[in-house]
């Protein structure tokens, strides 16, 4: 092990070529993951979260133009030769994709699918040691090792998601990127899967980047949270604080969307955020959240706000932070 910093993303820009001009999905993102740390990335669909995740392993589609640095253990993934990159994928860093339910090959047994990355990285492995490794991996994610002989359709959603995690762990990665690992799972299975993930970080000291639109899940599991909107970071800080006392209005809206059970203020007043994220191809000059922002004012329109430090240890990109709000009372959002 070298330094504590495992992954450092510096000023990353990713843009897709489309028929209607370039689509900037990620616009200047900085993010750091230390060993033994879980970093959450939150935002709605279309905010650039999944693009960010796939770029970490250089899995972005060929139509994408990338600039900036993705330093994995100090080496830039974007400029690596193919051989080095292959060594990093799976063994250095692995990814648990969104929608596990459809990511497994339906005609192969679970065991064979877990064995695949093992064999790719070490073709000399014998039958015996592969079987042992598969058993150990299944056990680690809380599945019966006999499940290795099952086909994906014989497993429930939560079990398939665990298989995906077992695959991601097969080559002992130092970094795990998990893209919406619990979306579509019910609460109890979600709790089980989150327990498996946090156990890994505690016991093996891996670093983890976890992507979700559910701020309450991230708050429960992560050390720090980065909130993205329209391809940029709008807030970054300690997980509990970003969820319970967000300073950017967008984080505030995400946090309010998942009520605390027992909070009288949330009874019969579900909080939503009207509108949709902007089309990244035609962004306005000012703050890209302003059209949907309950606190938007004149001052938000001329230029895009920069990420600045507020309080200790917290950053946000909003010019209205700390400003009085004489015109608007905090209002509940009606449908």
């Amino acid at each position, binding site marked *: 092990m070298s330094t504590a910093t495992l992954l450092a993303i510096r000023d990353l820009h990713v843009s897709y070529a489309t028929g209607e001009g370039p689509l900037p999905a990620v616009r200047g993102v900085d993010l750091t993951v230390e060993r033994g740390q879980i970093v959450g990335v939150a935002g709605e669909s279309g905010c650039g979260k999944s693009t960010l995740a796939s770029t970490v392993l250089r899995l972005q589609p060929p139509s994408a133009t990338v600039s900036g640095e993705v330093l994995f253990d100090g080496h830039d993934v974007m400029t690596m030769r193919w051989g080095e990159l292959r060594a990093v994928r799976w063994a250095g860093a692995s990814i648990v994709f969104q929608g596990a339910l459809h990511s497994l090959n339906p005609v192969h047994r679970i065991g064979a699918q877990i064995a695949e990355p093992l064999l790719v990285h070490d073709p000399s492995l014998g039958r015996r040691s592969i079987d042992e490794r598969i058993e150990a991996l299944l056990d680690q994610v809380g599945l019966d090792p006999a499940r290795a002989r099952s086909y994906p359709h014989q497993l429930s959603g939560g079990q398939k998601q665990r298989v995906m995690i077992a695959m991601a762990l097969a080559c002992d990665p130092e970094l795990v990127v998990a893209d919406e690992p619990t979306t579509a799972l019910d609460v*109890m299975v979600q709790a089980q899967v989150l327990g498996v993930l946090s156990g890994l970080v505690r016991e093996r000291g891996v670093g983890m980047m976890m992507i979700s639109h559910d701020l*309450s899940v991230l*708050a429960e599991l992560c050390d720090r949270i980065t909130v993205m909107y329209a391809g940029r970071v709008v807030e970054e800080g300690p997980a509990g604080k970003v969820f319970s006392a967000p300073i950017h209005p967008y984080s505030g809206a*995400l946090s309010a969307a998942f009520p*605390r059970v027992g909070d009288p203020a949330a009874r019969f007043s*579900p909080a939503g*955020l009207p509108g949709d994220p902007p089309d990244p191809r035609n962004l306005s000059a000012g703050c890209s959240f302003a059209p949907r922002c309950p606190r938007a004012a004149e001052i938000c329109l001329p230029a895009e706000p920069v990420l600045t430090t507020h309080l200790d240890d917290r950053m946000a990109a909003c010019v209205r932070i700390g400003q009085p709000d004489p015109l608007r009372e905090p209002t509940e959002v009606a*449908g």
Partner: protein
Amino acid sequence: MTPPQRSAELVASGLRVEFTTRAGRVAKALDGADLVVRAGEVVALVGESGSGKTTLARSLVGLTKPAAGEVTWDGKPMNRSARGLKSLRRQVQLVLQDPSGALNPRQTVYESVAEGLRVHKLVARSGKTEDELVAAALSSAGLRPPEGLFLRYPHELSGGQRQRVLIAGALAVQPQLLIADEPVSSLDASIRGEILALLLRLREELGLGVLVVTHDLGLAWNIADRIAVMYLGRVVESGPTEEVLTSPQHPYTQALLSVVPEMERLEPIVLRGEIPDPTRIPRGCRFHPRCPALASGEADEVADACRRTSLPILPSDPDGHRCACHLVASRARADAADEVSA
């Protein structure tokens, strides 16, 4: 649209639904479920995947035929003839899970919403044009201006808009009750609140009753008047949302609640494994193999009953807080005895 004149209720009593697996075993998807939903109230039906929530919702509109038990609407038992079901579904509309899959990709928004009007021949009766009725349904579902969406196809809409189109399709026939299966589980955090607010507004403005099927207790806290918790084909706890979620009685409800993220005040009780196979419902209390109270020894005094004695079906009581659990029942008996002796 005018609010309904009288308040009708949809009642399921002792519903049993069975499916035969390929191996010839019988899976009891519903094993005696009781539920009441009245017009003008929001009821949440919650439980893990595999608890039978969706089967119950489908049985309530006659899409699944029960092996035993009865569904009544407005005091009359469900008439299973094609005509009977058609007239029931004019009053009680089902909004399916997954808006991307439930809309026909080759139909415009207008066609999708107008379909119900045509099936039920409502245009002639209303004295309005079809355009006006479709527009009214779309704007009730919060899609404004409605005319702009008439000729759009589902792929041109966002997830939230698709969900609203589905709700508009249901509202077009002016039902008294809406059954929504996981209405927000596939939607983004920001849209979630919008759709829930829409359901509440429909209740206010149209006096609509809503049954929401969900695994999300936060959603229930957000909008439901009452809540019914299902486990393995039966309702195990039901009552007013405030009572059930702030002082849950059943160990299963307690466990579900403790794993909702950010419930700091509760020690998480993560149940091992998943709901058992419905072809092999455990003897005694159906929850006993996973019950944390039984495992910890807390339920020692009733352990025999938990393992051997099955519990009666929880009656659908629209006003009280009820729970099917040997431990809770024995504590209640002890409390009552104390009161008598004191």
